[in-house]
Structures are given as C-alpha cells and as structure tokens.
C-alpha cells in the first residue's frame, strides 16, 4: 500500500474512534445524573416522605404529599384543557393537511414547541393572575395546557397519518359520512399512538417549573382548590434546592428522584405502547 493509502485508512480509523468517544461522552452525563439521583435521593425516601407535608424548619422528616397531590391536580386539569385542543388540531392536520392554512398551523406548532415555557407562564399570569389579584393553580394548569397543545398536535398528526388509506376507503365505500369515517375508523385505529403522544406530553409538562413560578406559585400546605396557590413537585424541588438548609437539600434530592421516576415511568410506558403496536403490524 502506498503511504497515502495508509494515511487515509489511519484517518478513517481515528475519526471512527473519535466519533465513538464523543457518543460515549454524550451519554455519560445521563449515567452520572441517574447515579447521583439514586445515591443521594434514595436514602431520604421513606413512607412518611409520600404521606406527610413539610415540617417546620429545624425538625427533620416530613414529606411532599402536598406537592405530589398538587402536581396531579395541576397536570390533570392541564390535560382536560390541552388534550382536546391538541388532539383536534392533530386530526385536522392529518385529515385536511394540504394547503396553506394547515402548513401554517404545522409550522406554528413546531415553532411554539421551542418557545420558552416561561413566556407562556407570563401569558397565563396576565390572563388569570393579574385580573383576579392572586395566584392560582388554574393559571398554572392553563400555562401547562398551552405548552401541551403543540406537542400533542404534532404526535397525533403523525399517528393518524400512519393509518392505511385503504381503511378509510373501505368505510367511505360502505356509505359512512366523512366525519364518522374519520372518528370511528381512522382515529380509532390510531388511538394507541395518540395515547402514547399524550403520555409523552404529560411526562414533559409534569417536570415543568418555569411556567408555574408565578401562576401556581407554590404552597407549603396541602391544597386541593384550583382557585388557590398550589404546590407542585418541580416547584418544591426548586425551593428546597435553592434554600440554605442541609435538610432541605436532602429533601430536594429525594423529590428530584421521585419526579424523575414519575417522568421516566410515563415516558417508558409510552415507548412500550408504541413498540408493541409496531411489532403487531
């Protein structure tokens, strides 16, 4: 082999190795974060952590029951508002997806998907906090719902598009009107995929902190009223992590572990559902 050929092979080998190393480096932080979460979080978790509310500063113990309940309420309400809009938009994009207006909707959805969540929080504040004069869980839910819509719309569109055209043709040939074809045949076939998309979106908004800062605000006590400030798990973590007390830091790690576990559970459930569906085809 000529020296030039040797050099070219060498470069190819070295660059392949370099790319592999870069890839490994990119995965490393994830492993480190998980290791730290489990190492530092697991020791602070006991039964009380899930069923009690915070104790006064200086005492040890206490839990984040109020934040878990709050997160569930805020995210649940957000789903009630956001899912119908998002899924409807997604079906529209899949069923009437050609032309200028759908193009704009698709484009705006993708752009809004990358918009800072704190800006959406500001919008919710101007609509629902400022006029009322006090913070409320509802405002937080609305902010999260607005974040959800573009995500859900795009995944729904993708899933509905996967439905084979022959199914639609069969229904239409049997004399079904278009709307029933769409709802009872096409969307129904895609329902597993739509649920997956919704789960992924829920996993993402459940971890959002920024849009809740000046909407749901946070609360040190258990509250179930949508009209009042409410605690959410991410807000609790932020409070504990930025506070000065050793005990709070311990609780921050524990809450972070719980939040991470919840998010991962939702995300992997979503993955698992899609995988099974594809395998069945």
């Amino acid at each position, binding site marked *: 082999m000529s020296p030039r050929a040797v050099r070219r092979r060498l*470069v*190819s*080998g070295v*660059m*392949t190795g370099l790319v592999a190393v*870069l*890839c490994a480096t*990119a995965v490393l932080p*994830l492993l480190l*974060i998980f290791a*730290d979460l489990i190492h530092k979080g697991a020791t602070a978790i006991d039964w009380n952590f899930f069923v009690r509310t915070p104790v006064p500063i200086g005492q040890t113990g206490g839990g984040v029951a109020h934040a878990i309940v709050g997160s569930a309420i805020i995210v649940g309400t957000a789903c009630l508002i956001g899912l119908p809009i998002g899924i*409807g938009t997604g079906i*529209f*994009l899949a069923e*009437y997806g*050609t*032309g200028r207006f*759908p193009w704009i*909707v698709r*484009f*705006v959805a*993708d*752009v809004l998907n*990358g*918009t*800072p*969540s*704190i*800006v959406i929080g*500001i*919008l919710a*504040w*101007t609509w629902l906090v400022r006029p009322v004069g006090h913070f409320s869980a509802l405002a937080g839910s609305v902010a999260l719902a607005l974040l959800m*819509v*573009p*995500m859900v*719309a795009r*995944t729904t569109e993708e899933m509905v598009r996967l439905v084979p055209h022959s199914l639609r*043709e069969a229904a*239409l040939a049997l004399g079904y009107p278009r*709307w*029933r074809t769409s709802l009872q045949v096409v969307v129904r076939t895609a329902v597993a995929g739509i649920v997956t998309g919704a789960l*992924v979106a829920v*996993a*993402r908004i459940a*971890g959002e*902190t*920024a849009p809740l*800062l*000046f909407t749901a605000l946070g609360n040190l006590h258990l509250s179930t009223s949508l009209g009042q400030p409410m605690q959410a798990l*991410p807000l609790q973590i932020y409070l504990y*992590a*930025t506070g000065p007390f050793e005990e709070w830091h311990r609780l*921050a790690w524990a809450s*972070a572990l719980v*939040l991470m576990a919840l*998010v991962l559970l939702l*995300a992997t459930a*979503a*993955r698992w559902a899609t995988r099974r569906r594809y395998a069945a085809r």
Partner: protein
Amino acid sequence: MLRGVLFRVRYTAVTARAKSTGRLSRVSVLLPSFHNRGDRAYRVTLTGLASLLPLLLVVVAAELAVRAWPSMQRFGFSFLWTGRWDPVAEVYGAGPLIFGTLMSSLVALLLAVPLALGVAIFLTEFAPKWMRQPVAFLVELLAAVPSVVYGVWGVFVLIPFLRAHAVPPLKAALGWTPFFSGVFYGNSMLAGGIILAIMIVPYIAAVSREVLRAVPGSQREAALGLGATRWEAVWSAVLPYGRAGVIGAVMLGLGRALGETMAVTMVIGNRHDISASLLQPGYTMAAALANEFSEATTGMYLAALFEVGFVLFVITVSVNALARLLVWRVARGGAAGSRAL
C-alpha cells in the same frame, strides 16, 4: 333521484374547483365534503381548534408588546445594550441579560455540537446494528430529565466538581486569557453553559440523526465505490448532503438553549454584569424573568420585564422558525425533533 342529480352536480363542481386551484386533497375526490351536515360540522370544529395555535402565537406577541410599551417608549432601543438595572431609580437596561443569554448559549453550542454530531454520525454510520436503538434511547432520555433536576445536579454535583477539579487546571493553563480570569466562586457562566450543553445534546442529536438517515444510501455507495474510506464517504458525501438539516438541528438546539430557564437560573449566578470571563456570574433573560417577575412592584419594573420577555420571544421564535425551515427542507414534513422524547 333529484338528490342523485344534485349530488352529481355538486360533485363535479367541487372537483373542478379543486383541480383548478390545485388543492385536490385525497378525500375530496372520493366525496364532496359538504353533502353531509355532520361533515361540515366536523370540519368546522377541527378547523376552529387548529386555528387556536396561530392565534396563540399572535396573542403572545401582542400581549407582550402591549405591556412592554411603557418601557419601550421610555428607554427606546438603548434598552437592548445599556447595563443599568435599578428598580429603585426606575432605570432599566437589558444589555447584560441579552449578553448572558447569547454567551451561555454560545458556550453550550461549542460543547454540545461536537458531542451531538458524534452521536448522530456514530449511530447512523458506524455503530453496529444492535447498539443503535439502545444508545439513541439513552441519549433521548436526556431530553426527558426535567430542567429543575438538571438544576439540582448542577448545584450539588457539577459546581463542586468544577471548583475542586476542573477550574484550577483550567486557570493554570488559560488564566492569562480574559475568558478564564478572576476568582471562581461556583455559580458562573461556565456552569450555566455546561448544564445547557448537556440539555441540548439530545435535541441536536435526534434531529441530526433523522437528517443523516434521510441521506440516500446511493450517496454513500457512490463515494465508497470511488474508493473513499468510510470516514471520507461520511465527510465528503453524507454530511454535505445533509448540511442544511444539520445546521437546522443546531439552530433548534440554540433555540432551546436561549429559552432554558430553571437549570440556568440555579447555576449561572444571576448578576446583572457583563464579563468576558466564563468564571464570573452572569444572567440570562429567562432567568431574570423567573427571579424577578413575581416581585416586580412598580409599573415600569413590570413593563421592563415584559420587554425582556418580548425580546426573548422574538429571538427564540425567529431562531426556531429558521431552524424548522432548514430541517423541513431535508427531512420533509416529518415531525423530527418536535417529539418530546
């Protein structure tokens, strides 16, 4: 009978119209959409829901602009580069915030782009088949970690590590440059940039991977057939083909970095200062909103914060829009990267 005739007439009319405008959707050939009242209601409902999104974009921009108006009027364009932020004297300038936002995102890009491209190239071109799915899944899991969890990790793990092990050698080697001068206390531009880099790697990697996968196999085969090594095939045939998409992917990452709030707020130091040194604390627009919005007491303070929000919104929307167009050009119409995971 009459119904049949009417149907036929309408059908012909509608398809003719559709053909002449060139918007012949798949189903309008099969059935005119308005022959059934339910169909019309269905379409109107869905269109109504879908129009909420563009409406939202316009409303956000308008709301921010209107509420920022007092500040825009009073400080003009100098708001964008002056540095005094004084709620007592009611003088506001967002220079340090804009500088910090751009600087932290730049640091993040410098660190994240090689890593993310490494992931994308390795997984599409070199990795053995059994490795691709699991590694891609791991990288995308990074996108599922909530921002505030990154913040916790940054405060309690990353910053102590930087202080003890990373910054001293860095200062010894590069302390003479303006970028690594001064005393390192922990919360700093460097910490913010690193956290941001970790957070945007999955986005850039996922979208670039999609783009590289969309490069036709014939590109690789042609290069290899001409005697290129595997790396030369990637470098001279695959990457140039997907260039626009990869640039788009990087810009999507940039958009994320510009607007990222919680993790940055927790590690960047939150000081209205402009310093070239990465070891010094800084501030970003999103962090300022997170910290100061709920304590803004006077009208002008609030208006200034709204203007910060407006600037942030305009910048991120432009970056995202441009990125989207670039990515769409390559991986046509797919929702690449718009998935949360």
